[in-house]
């Protein structure tokens, strides 16, 4: 093999000599490392559209709340949601544009009960003294986690929106705020809210009928998002894989889950697209338990973009897994 040598020549302080293929490749890798961030930054800068002036700007944390706000407010509101549905509601990381949105919002509609504590610094920094903050969980009777274990927030588990009856209370809270901010629209808001509530009632009735027919309605939830959902529709949560979201179970806990599945005959385990994990796949392979992909948020699964679809999707998925 011929070798091309730059005998003792030094260029820019570098001693050039015979270059191995490996060195060339490493250099290429280094250049890639410098170019990639630049290219990525070029291609990912995108901004959300600025809201129009005439409507009331409502900023919500979850897509579900945004859907409620649109249902109630119609053309009189312009709604933006911070989460797209692919992020976890506990682990969401605030982006710089979120501060801008809050600064220009008329109403902030959030769940409360400590779920969106990550938003507090943003609200402080946004400098919007006329912002009206509405909580979907206000006046809602709360539950602790499944199996009575106390949720991280002693006030209760925040996943209240997954129970359509409790959703109606949240909607009422929003209507009250809208009426305060925009009294001229009161009749519109109340009419629309009432219509939507009726829709939710009939939905709940229809879906509960599906669940009643199940011989066995027990499942293992992925994280503690489902107590209200289970309570309303008649499911039973046997255990949770990740009681603390983002915190993977230890060997003992995995063994416990395995035992539970085997001895108690639990047939379904939930997984959530916002919290990817290898543990569910592993448990499936180990015990043959079925996986039901459930989502507590809209926007994560194709076709599940509004609240009604969300509830319907979760019920139908869980019911078919439990057949």
């Amino acid at each position, binding site marked *: 093999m011929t070798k091309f040598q730059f*005998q*003792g020549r*030094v260029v820019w302080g570098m*001693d050039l000599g015979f270059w191995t293929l490996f060195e060339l490749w490493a250099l290429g890798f280094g250049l890639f490392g410098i170019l990639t961030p630049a290219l990525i930054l070029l291609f990912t800068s995108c901004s959300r559209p600025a809201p129009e002036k005439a409507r009331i700007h409502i900023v919500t944390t979850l897509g579900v709340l945004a859907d409620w706000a649109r249902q109630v407010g119609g053309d009189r509101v312009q709604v933006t949601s911070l989460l797209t549905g692919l992020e976890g509601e506990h682990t969401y990381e605030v982006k710089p544009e979120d501060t801008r949105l809050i600064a220009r919002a008329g109403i902030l509609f959030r769940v409360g009960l400590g779920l969106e504590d990550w938003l507090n610094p943003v609200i402080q920094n946004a400098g919007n003294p006329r912002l009206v903050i509405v909580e979907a969980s206000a006046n809602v009777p709360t539950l602790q986690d499944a199996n009575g274990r106390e949720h991280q927030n002693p006030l209760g588990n925040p996943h209240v929106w997954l129970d359509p009856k409790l959703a109606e209370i949240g909607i009422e809270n929003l209507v009250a705020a809208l009426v305060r901010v925009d009294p001229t629209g009161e009749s519109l808001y109340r009419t629309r809210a009432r219509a939507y509530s009726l829709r939710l009632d009939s939905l709940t009735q229809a879906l509960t009928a599906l669940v009643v027919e199940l011989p066995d309605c027990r499942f293992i939830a992925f994280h503690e998002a489902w107590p209200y959902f289970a309570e309303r529709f008649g499911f039973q949560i046997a255990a949770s894989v990740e009681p603390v979201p983002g915190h993977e179970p230890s060997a003992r806990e995995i063994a416990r889950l395995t035992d539970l599945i085997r001895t108690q005959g639990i047939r379904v385990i939930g997984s959530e697209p916002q919290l990817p994990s290898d543990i569910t796949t592993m448990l499936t392979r180990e015990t043959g338990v079925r996986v039901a992909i459930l989502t507590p948020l809209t926007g994560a699964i194709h076709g599940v973009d509004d609240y009604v679809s969300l509830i319907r999707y979760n019920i139908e998925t869980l019911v078919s897994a439990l057949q």
Partner: protein
Amino acid sequence: MNNQLTPEPAIMVKTGLAVQFRNVSVTFPETVGLEDVSLDVATGEFLAVIGPNGSGKTTLLRTILGLANPARGTVTVLGTHPAQARRHIGYVPQRTPFDPKFPVSVFDVALMGTYGALGILHAPDQRDKGRVMGLLEAVGLADVASHVAGHLSGGQQQRLLIARALAAQPQLLLLDEPTSGVDVASQKSIIELIRGLHDKLKLTTLLVTHDINEVMPCLDKVLYLNRRVYAFGTCQDVLNRETLEKLYQSPVLIVEQEGRPYVIVSDRHV
């Protein structure tokens, strides 16, 4: 001395010259190593390379090994390119003390000398190991063969390096200041050992030193080096006051002591 020490000639040396330099210059980014050096060493000769510190003596040896590349000139070693000749050269580098905690024995280190010639996938066999043991006997380290190499004294480590260099059955032996860092009593015995080996094995030997008196009485050829060649030739030609004074740039006195010439350089320790 037993047959195990006789090197087997693996390369046909065509011209009878073990080492040949023609106008060789070696440059480094910051300094000049060698400048226009020409020399010949015939097979079986003993060449002493003398020069002060920093005169390029180590560079000369490295060029012979192909570890330094000449910017100008040609180098022929054992009839071929230095890099090809490398596994037939025994190199005793300037000694740096072994790590006393490194887990190798004296025998292990000597055996390492055979690795270059053996190549990958070939482990040393009983014959190789017997030969290495014989070498350790020849250098006087047989009784410490299983000791940790790093525990040896300076003189003993130097002998071990010599044994390691010979383990490869070389046709050319290069020694870089083999007495540096060694106590005075051992210095003499090491030089005697080297001369004895050269005598018995008829091995082409280059010995580099800054002290000319080490290589007295003189054998074969001498090279005075200080980046350039100040003198190169047989002992008679070179070992005289005028040449030495030009090399050291100082008054020089040659004295006879017990039939042996002794060089004294005034106002500078050699």
